[in-house]
């Protein structure tokens, strides 16, 4: 008897829970959807999520822990510093006349695409107005199409992957930093311009980053018989466990080619430091090319013990001033930047200059501000329209003016070839 009783009771409970749930189901989500999709005749525009009359929420999904946490924290801290300062001044006046404060929400993706995809879901649930500024190709790619589906702007992402600036492929996206090909091409063009014959050795990271740089360079020197690429070596990148421990064998091998130009697309700071020291030690003194994210004078060249005379020339492609260079710290804008970083950064031990990404994020924040000031309605569409129509804006620390109107190119397009002068970099047009 007891058996059947408790059995029945259990089933009864299950059944009633089911019944209640079904009733809830009938009214909750299905019912909720009907109202907004009904008539669309009201005069006032329905604001998008994440924006009120006084605030706007912006989400950043980026690596905050793990092997890429250094630059990752920078992508948050630059924006926090910039908008922190603006908020303290009362906020930003939007194109619709309202003054809003910008709230930055950061989400750790550990450089793991699956986490960044989950972060996107969370950002939508948290009601961010737009998201972006985050670092990483696979992590941004993981939610690119989800952002398109959900119509959430994914803007000013820190990856040189060209797909983010392709308006057809990526209708709600925009890249911040120049695409890798542009940077590689800038060096190639300057090398061609000096007219001398050159033998080039290349070391690149075997991913979109390294391959993009190399492709840009190759395209720029193509058809020029003076310039011969004598050897290309690569290495497998990857965070944490598979981060290459040292690349000196590649440098040694490339030195054996006797090349006089070393095109080096390596994104891991300590490895670049080692390579610079290594080549000098084994007596190989080519002209160097460094990518923008691992060319910091204070963070890379000085620790490597490199001076102006070590190599015939160290060239980097830059699109922003380097916070680690003395002129930056002495300028008014630079002082304001460091003060803001000191006040608002949330990442641990952030000095604002160990990685360039803090400055890039600061530039990105200015571009966002431009878009905010131009958007006339509190909607994502209006924001994207505004963002895509910035032209001739001179952002602090950025070379050249910002132009977001060109399909296929990111917000920062002006890349300059720079030569190391012992302290910082000076812009040059020709290698040599």
């Amino acid at each position: 008897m007891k058996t059947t009783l408790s059995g029945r009771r259990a089933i009864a409970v299950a059944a009633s829970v089911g019944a209640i749930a079904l009733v809830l189901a009938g009214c909750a989500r299905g019912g909720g959807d009907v109202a907004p999709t009904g008539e669309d005749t009201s005069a006032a525009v329905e604001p998008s999520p994440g924006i009120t009359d006084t605030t706007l929420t912006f989400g950043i999904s980026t690596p905050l822990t793990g092997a890429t946490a250094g630059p990752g924290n920078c992508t948050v801290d630059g924006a926090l510093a910039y908008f922190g300062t603006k908020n303290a001044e009362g906020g930003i006046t939007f194109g619709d006349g309202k003054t809003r404060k910008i709230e930055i929400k950061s989400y750790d993706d550990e450089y793991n695409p699956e986490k960044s995809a989950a972060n996107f879901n969370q950002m939508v649930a948290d009601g961010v107005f737009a998201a972006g500024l985050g670092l990483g190709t696979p992590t941004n790619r993981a939610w690119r199409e989800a952002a398109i589906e959900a119509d959430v702007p994914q803007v000013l992402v820190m990856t040189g992957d060209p797909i983010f600036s392709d308006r057809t492929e990526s209708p709600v996206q925009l890249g911040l930093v120049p695409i890798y090909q542009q940077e590689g091409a800038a060096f190639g063009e300057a090398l061609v311009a000096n007219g001398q014959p050159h033998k080039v050795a290349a070391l690149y990271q075997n991913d979109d980053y390294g391959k993009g740089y190399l492709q840009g360079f190759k395209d720029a020197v193509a058809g020029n018989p003076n310039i011969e690429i004598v050897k290309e070596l690569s290495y497998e990148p990857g965070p944490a466990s598979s981060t290459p421990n040292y690349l000196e064998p590649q440098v040694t091998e490339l030195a054996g080619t006797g090349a006089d130009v070393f095109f080096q697309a390596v994104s891991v700071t300590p490895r670049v430091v080692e390579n610079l020291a290594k080549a000098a030690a084994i007596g190989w003194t080519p002209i160097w090319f460094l990518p923008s994210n691992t060319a910091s004078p204070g963070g890379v060249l000085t620790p490597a013990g490199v001076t102006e005379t070590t190599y015939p020339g160290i060239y980097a492609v830059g699109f922003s001033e380097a916070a680690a260079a003395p002129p930056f710290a002495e300028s008014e804008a630079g002082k304001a930047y460091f003060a803001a970083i000191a006040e608002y950064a949330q990442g641990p031990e952030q000095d604002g200059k160990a990685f360039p990404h803090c400055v890039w994020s600061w530039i990105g924040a200015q571009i966002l501000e431009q878009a905010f000031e131009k958007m006339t309605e509190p909607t994502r569409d209006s924001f994207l329209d505004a963002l895509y129509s910035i032209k001739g804006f001179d952002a602090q620390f950025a070379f050249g003016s910002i132009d977001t109107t060109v399909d296929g190119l990111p917000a920062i397009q002006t890349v300059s070839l720079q030569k190391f002068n012992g302290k910082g970099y000076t812009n040059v047009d020709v290698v040599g």
Partner: protein
Amino acid sequence: MNPFGTFIQLLVDGLAQGSIYGALALAIVLVNQATGLVNFAQGGMAVLGSYIGLTIGNLLIPGVGSTLGVVLGIVAAVIASLALGGVVERFVMRRFERAEEDTKVVATIGLLTLITGLVGLIWGFNPTPYPFFFGGSESLRIGDVSISVWSIVTFTTIVALMVVLQILFRGTKFGLGMRAVADNAPSAALAGIRVGGLRMAGWGLAAALGTVAAILLASKSQLTPNNFDGILVYALAAVVIGGLDSPIGAVVAALGITILESLAAAYIPWIGHDLKVVVPFVLVFVVLIIRPQGLFGRRAVVRV
């Protein structure tokens, strides 16, 4: 540089880099001998130790001058690591003495997670240059080949440590006790050996050894919280290939896989630098299948 010069250069560089893997492998062997487990947190502890050394060194430098400051920093790091290793063994790992193998492994993984999180929060993620107290970036040239002072210092330090450990293991009462503990702790305890003390000492020594390696590495390529993540994987491979109970085996295997990897990358085109990481791990497979106790290890007798 002629092709032969390149070859020699690869060998020389492999020896120096392999020494770093070897040092960590040595630390893993030491812990295994003392407590019969494999410490996945070894690299994390090494990084923590060197950050402590850096901090203390930087505090001292204004007062005592840079060279002495750095040296004292390193001494402090070694002492701190000794203490850290002992404390971790006594208050964390001791709890898992009788636990099963997988629990112990996971405990050290938890430790690694904890330490990595802590280091990142305290010292941040910026790569920090580690001062070297004499011309580490200087190098000697012999013909085409250049050998950096760093390489020489690293290699000789590690080989010296290996020799000391080998003597310690095979030739002293301490080592004998350690082996007795590793073999059979209860009977070692009955024989009057202070098992707990030996275990703490083993952990402490291993942590100090790892810290020496981390400092050597950092003085070449800066200090980051994740400095040793990739190196740990190589060190484990070296330990498996060399044998868990053999200090010499661990170091020789570490040097061997590093050189083999570089040479395979340079001279076997279809491997190249993209796939060179595969080389040591394929070797791990091969060695384990042919000689599961490692090339230098002793076969354990399985009792029923």
